[in-house]
């Protein structure tokens, strides 16, 4: 019961004064109570759902940022290892690594 799952809000409506909606979890759709997040959530936003209730909004910009930070971190470490193994300079400028991230 304690596993909260992120899902996308695809429908919002009112049920007798209670803000409700439909949330899509990668193809599985469920009716979810949006009462606690209705002030900040619109169609297309992601929310964390626990036992049929949205308990917080997922901040897309932060989600992207966390992921990028981790990805950069792992790249740097990889470059460090390569350097340790010999052949490459140990200090590769951040921008070079960032430029590669599209690949």
């Amino acid at each position: 019961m304690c596993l909260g799952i992120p899902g996308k809000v695809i429908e919002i409506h009112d049920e007798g004064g209670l803000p409700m909606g439909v949330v899509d979890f990668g193809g599985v759709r469920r009716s979810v109570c949006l009462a606690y997040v209705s002030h900040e959530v619109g169609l297309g936003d992601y929310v964390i759902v626990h036992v049929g209730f949205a308990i917080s909004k997922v901040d897309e910009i932060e989600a992207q940022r966390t992921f990028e930070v981790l990805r950069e971190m792992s790249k740097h470490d990889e470059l460090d290892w390569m350097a340790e193994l010999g052949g490459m300079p140990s200090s590769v400028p951040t921008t070079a690594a960032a430029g590669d991230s599209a690949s």
Partner: protein
Amino acid sequence: MKYLTEYRDASIALPLIERIRKTATRPWTLMEVCGGQTHTIVRQGLDELLDGAVEMIHGPGCPVCVTPLEQIDKALQLAARPGVIFTSFGDMLRVPGSDCDLQQVRARGGQVRIVYSPLDALALAQRNPESEVVFFAVGFETTAPANAMAVWRARELGVTNFSVLVSHVTVPPAIRAIMQSPGNRVQGFLAAGHVCAVMGWSEYEPLAEQYKIPIVVTGFEPLDILEGILMAVQQLEDGRNEVENQYVRSVRREGTPPARARIEDVFELADRKWRGIGEIPMSGLRLREEFAAFDAERKFGLGGITVNEPAECRAGDVLTGRLKPPLCAAFGTRCTPEHPLGALMVSSEGACAAYYHIAKHRGAAPAGVMA
């Protein structure tokens, strides 16, 4: 972004593990509070990959596991009553009571229904006015907003045949109890991301200060957990004891204020027993007096319940990090997920069940990240 798969990328996880290993100049001991995190850590083998650098102790954050035996026995008593429809989250059905579980009560003719949301239980009460519908309101701060809303709505809609059997617990008092327990080895905590999504993290600041421990609010995916561990290890290495937030995408300092407000409306703090641990002062929630009409314990006059915990179960030692599940003598023999002796073997979020599944799985294939 789908906010799931991205945070399971092995090509990022493995360097992160290496970074944690390099950062730790000595072995550190951390506790993840939440059962969902335990599940990820054991399943992905993160604990083994970090072996020697960081030891993870699996905390008591699984509601299925810590709901005290007498509340389970009360649930069993209610479910067996004629005229009662007993509703619950699915994972409570196989939690062993003193002499049976909810599933067995159902097999004997008790009306036990699984619901996904407590609002479904309320709707069931509206559709069955001739029956008493009782909902088993268990869980941490993550389920409290949902359970509070069900009671609030019942009053608003004038539904009188609906009540709740409350067994709610909260995380911060458990952290305090663990830090005060004799022989405690925990040096830092990963706080449960979704609990903090509701409550925020200001409650954790006095704990970090008082016990001089880093507390990192952490998400549930493998990369979240690894980053949380890295942040905690970095703090320990620097001699810092701060509350930090790894799970920025879902947790804000103040949490989700409307959800906190509704919890406050309906519940108040109370002493609660934790299965395997015992009573922790002010560690749970009970209904406020103005909602007494929705309190199943009062409505049905439940009492005089004597409980009988199997002596062999060492859940208390597991929950406080003194014993790893496979070292319990009953593990995998007299205690399995099919026939659990203790609650920790029931839910996949329970430490014993998590170890059991991975031990079985590893018989066939080696452990690995993102298996």
